[in-house]
Structures are given as structure tokens and as C-alpha cells.
């Protein structure tokens, strides 16, 4: 029997708090899960710094990847299989792409990518196509199979329906992370009736669409996205941790570039500082390694990196103040000047954060054909864009809401204000 068709003698199941069980019957899927590159995802948290706010949010990209795989498996095996619009020859490539779609994520990936100008999608491609264990497993299916999986994830696969299951405005990725993030953060938003959505999902040539009768389940899903963004993903405390994390990495890079000698040489970072990294350097990184460096750097002579690391490790985060750039942008310049005069480097201690710094794809009904909208399949068989039929979706997809905050070390300012009158002035400006 060809490797691509091999089944395990006994189906394997993973217990999962979101989907109850994750079923693996295909030998290829089992072998991919066992590779070192996939196992590495156990050491990358799905929500980065969010665990500093919602203490349960320690779940990993490994769990999420299995969850996405399971949703796609259910869509195909329980929904699409046997329908004329679905080609069952695409089953394995779709399952592999679902399982491996986040393979290139690095430690605290949002911050890490920002500082080092990297792209996890690029690393996903490199791991799939490079000299890796994952590539070796996929190649056993066929010499072109790694490229096919990479094309699905890279959204350049000819079968658009396959791509839409992994990345569209209602895909398995979002359906898993919303529920999983809601479960682990413990919030009550983020829940929706996925079983119902899967039951009413239909394949078409271009994408998966939803039967009109399932509109209310989709409305719930869109509302969940909206709520989770503002309540969890853009939580100001989690953002505070993230801006500190970004500044630690910036400071370490700056020190390295300026010839600073670290008491603990940042071996794992050197190739990223110099932009000479190889794929293996990237795969070798995980969040435990970063946290170990942060622990060590707390004792560095450089007071800025030491302080920022202390803050991150011990959750002594920056405080935030609301900030309206439209009317207060001139104030920023004054504040920066005051910080300098007060002996605080504004580059590291006065930080602005906007909602656009954490991109989140609010549902947008296909503006200028930039993105494919969610389509409802009407009783006549015609397709209708979701917000045309749903008042709820129409209401939230047309509304803009933005948020801007300034982060600063309130603890330092409060403690030192008796000795340094500038601190008092800064506090006054920040709070008014």
C-alpha cells in the first residue's frame, strides 16, 4: 500500500479540552506529529504574553495545530466527502496543511518578528521545503508533496476550496483559536456553535460557503471574534508585557551592535542580531530559551536591559494611560523631552501602542475585492455576502473602533516624585 494511503492499525486519539478527541488514522499525520519541528510547537505559547493577564493562557501552538487539523478532518470526512464539488484526492494535502500551518512560528512570535523583521510564514515554507524531519516525512508521500503543502499554506495552491479551509474569513484556524483561547483564558466570550457551522458548511469551486439556515451560528462566530479581540487579544496589560518584551529585544540588539560585552554571551541571538541566521538557528529557539536569557540579563550591568528583564520576568509591567493622538500628538514630544531631562530614556520608558500594532482581521465584506467575504448559500442556490443578510454583522463590520495607549513606568515616577519634581510633572501630564 502506498504510504499516502497507509492507516494506523489502531486509530490514535489525543484528549483535547476543546474538541474532546482528536482522531488520527493516517500514518502520514502520525509521523508528521512525531517530527522534531512539530514537537517544537509545544514550546511556543499560542497567546504569547497573554498568560501574564489570563493565567490559564499557557496553551501551545502544538495544541492549536492539532485542533485545526481536527476541524478540517471533520469538515472533510463528515461534511465534504462524497459531494461532487469536493475532490477526495485533496484530503491528505489539506490535512497536512491544517496541521502544519503554524510550523514557522517563533518564540513570542509577534514581538520577535517585529524586532528582527522576520515572517513566520516564510519560516513555515523553509521548514517544509528544507532539510528537516517534516520534509522527509512529506517526501515519502511524493517528491512534490512538500511543495503542495507549502502552496496550500502559502495560498498559491490551485484548488481554492482547499486554501479556504485553512485561511479565509471563516476557516479552521480561526474556529480553533477562538474556542481554544476562550477556554484557556477562561473568558465567556469566544464560544460559538462550531458543530452547527460544520453541518451547514458546503463546498463550492472557489471556497467553503455556509447554508443560509446557518447564518445565526456564523453571526455568533463573528461576534466572538470581535469580543475576543477587545477583551483578550488587545488587553492593555498583555500589551504592556508585549511592549516591554519588544524593548528588551531592541535593547539587546542595540547593545550588541554597539560592542557591549554581555556577562552571559547571547549565543542564540547573535545570528539574528547580525542577520546571518540559518534555518537551524531559528528552529533552535523557543520560549524557554528566551526566558532563560531574560533571567540572566536581569543581572547585566546595562541598567535598561536589566530593568526591562526584571519587569517582564516578575510582572512589574508598565502602567498605561489613554491617549488621543488627534489632539495630543504635540504632548508626546514634550513628554519625551521631560523624560530625557528626568534621566529616563523615552525610547524604552515611554511607549505608544495602537490597535493597529496588533492586526486583527475584523470581518470586512470584500472591499475592492481585497479579501473574499463569507458567503451564504441562499435557498435558491445563489451566493449572498454575509453582511447583506445579517444586520448584526452589517452593524459591526461597518464600525471603526480604534484604541491608543501610552505605556510608562508609573512605579518609578511615583517612588521618585518626592526627590525629582520632574517626575511629578510627568505624572501630571500623563494622567491629564
Amino acid at each position, binding site marked *: 500500500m502506498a504510504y499516502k494511503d497507509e492507516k494506523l492499525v489502531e486509530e490514535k486519539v489525543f484528549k483535547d479540552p476543546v474538541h474532546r478527541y482528536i482522531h488520527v488514522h493516517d500514518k502520514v499525520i502520525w509521523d508528521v506529529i512525531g517530527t522534531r519541528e512539530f514537537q517544537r510547537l509545544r514550546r511556543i505559547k499560542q497567546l504569547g504574553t497573554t498568560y501574564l493577564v489570563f493565567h490559564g493562557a499557557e496553551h501551545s501552538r502544538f495544541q492549536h495545530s492539532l485542533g485545526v487539523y481536527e476541524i478540517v478532518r471533520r469538515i472533510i470526512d463528515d461534511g465534504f466527502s462524497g459531494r461532487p464539488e469536493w475532490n477526495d484526492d485533496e484530503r491528505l494535502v489539506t490535512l497536512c496543511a491544517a496541521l502544519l500551518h503554524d510550523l514557522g512560528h517563533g518564540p513570542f512570535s509577534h514581538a520577535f*518578528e*517585529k524586532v528582527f523583521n522576520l*515572517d513566520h*510564514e516564510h519560516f513555515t515554507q523553509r521548514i517544509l521545503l528544507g532539510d528537516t524531519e517534516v520534509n522527509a516525512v512529506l517526501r515519502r508521500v511524493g517528491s512534490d508533496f512538500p511543495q503542495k503543502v507549502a502552496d496550500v499554506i*502559502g*495560498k*498559491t*495552491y*490551485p484548488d*481554492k476550496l482547499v*486554501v479556504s479551509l485553512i485561511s479565509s474569513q471563516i476557516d479552521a484556524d480561526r474556529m480553533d483559536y477562538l474556542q481554544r483561547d476562550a477556554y484557556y483564558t477562561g473568558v465567556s466570550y469566544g464560544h460559538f456553535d462550531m458543530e452547527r457551522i460544520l453541518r451547514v458548511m458546503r463546498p463550492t469551486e472557489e471556497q467553503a460557503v455556509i447554508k443560509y439556515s446557518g447564518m445565526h451560528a456564523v453571526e455568533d462566530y463573528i461576534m466572538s471574534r470581535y469580543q475576543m479581540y477587545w477583551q483578550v487579544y488587545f488587553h492593555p496589560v498583555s500589551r504592556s508585557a508585549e511592549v516591554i518584551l519588544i524593548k528588551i529585544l531592541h535593547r539587546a540588539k542595540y547593545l550588541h551592535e554597539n560592542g557591549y560585552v554581555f556577562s552571559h554571551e547571547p549565543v542564540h541571538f547573535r545570528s539574528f542580531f547580525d542577520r546571518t541566521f540559518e534555518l537551524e538557528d531559528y528552529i533552535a529557539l523557543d520560549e524557554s530559551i528566551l526566558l532563560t536569557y531574560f533571567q540572566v540579563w536581569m543581572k547585566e550591568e546595562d541598567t535598561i536591559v536589566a530593568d526591562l528583564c526584571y519587569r517582564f520576568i516578575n510582572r512589574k509591567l508598565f502602567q498605561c494611560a489613554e491617549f*488621543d*493622538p*488627534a489632539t495630543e*500628538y*504635540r504632548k*508626546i*514630544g514634550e513628554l*519625551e523631552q521631560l523624560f530625557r531631562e528626568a534621566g529616563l530614556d*523615552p525610547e524604552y520608558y*515611554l*511607549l*505608544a501602542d*495602537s*490597535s*493597529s*500594532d496588533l*492586526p*486583527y*482581521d475584523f470581518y*470586512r465584506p470584500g*472591499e*475592492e*475585492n*481585497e*479579501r*473574499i467575504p463569507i458567503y451564504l448559500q441562499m435557498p435558491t442556490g445563489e451566493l449572498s455576502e454575509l453582511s447583506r443578510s445579517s444586520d448584526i454583522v452589517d452593524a459591526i463590520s461597518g464600525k*471603526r473602533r*480604534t484604541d*491608543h495607549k501610552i505605556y510608562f513606568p508609573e512605579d518609578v515616577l511615583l517612588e521618585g516624585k518626592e526627590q525629582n519634581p520632574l517626575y511629578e510633572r510627568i505624572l501630571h501630564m500623563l494622567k491629564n
Partner: protein
Amino acid sequence: MLQEHAKIVQFISMANEVNGRKKLQKMIYIAKKMNFPFAEKYELHMYGPYSEELTLRVEELCEMGFLAEQCVDKGSYVQYSYHVTEEGTSFLETTNTPHDLLTTCIDLLNVKSSRFLELVSTLLYFDHLETDEQIAKVHIVKNKLNFTEDEMTAAFGFIDELPKCSVQ
């Protein structure tokens, strides 16, 4: 602070006006490929490189009053055009001046159609591939747009011109 916002306002100010969200997306993408320091992260969407961060940033700038968005009904579709407001111009006075070559780059891009820039940006997205592979990818990603051979030739010709406005 707000440097990334300022770069977008600066860009639109230098262009005087940009007609179309898609056009703005593709112009910034191409400028970024020419090494101008835009921070917005792009991904390949169904219709080419697209940045959610840029979409949000522009929305924020409109809400701040630094950019004005005008919605023009073109019959079968709606087009949004952007220009910098007076407040946006005052905001720019507090920010750094951009690279000299950016004007050349913008002048080169802004006279082109949205469809053309869509093709150029998608080809650039695949610029790590051989020419025939780039073309094949474009046909897969944009199978409905039916780009002609002439358009492909013009796009590659345009890409060859771009280095003159590229930051080294």
C-alpha cells in the same frame, strides 16, 4: 512615537491623493520592496499582497482626522480615495522627513492603475522565483483577472525600472 502612522500620512501627502484602498495597499507594498522603511506586515491574500496592519493604520488615521477618506460611487463598485487634512499636515511638522527617493517612487507608482500595481506587487511577492514560475503563480492566484502577455511584459519592464527609486 507614532512614527509608523507618520510615514503613511507622509506617503499620502507626497502623493497628493491616492485613489483606491487597493491601490494604496499595493503602492506601500512596492515601496516597501524598494526598501523604504514601512513596518506594515504583508501577507498574500486571495488577490495579492495585503496588509491588515495598513488597513487598520489608515482607519486610525482617518479617525484621528489626519487623513480624509472619500467614498466615490463608480457604478459597479465603490472606491475610496485618501488625502491629508490640515490637521494631518500639522502633524507632519512634528515628524521626521522622509528619504529623498520616496518622491520618485511615489511619482512612478501613482500614475499607474490599480490593476497594474496589483500585477506588479504580486510578481514582486514571488520575486524569489524564476520568471516563468512567477508568471505561473500569478495565474494561479489571479486566475479571474486574466492578465495578458502584454500586461506581463509591461509589468516586468516596470519592475526593471524600480531600482532607480530603491533605497540601497
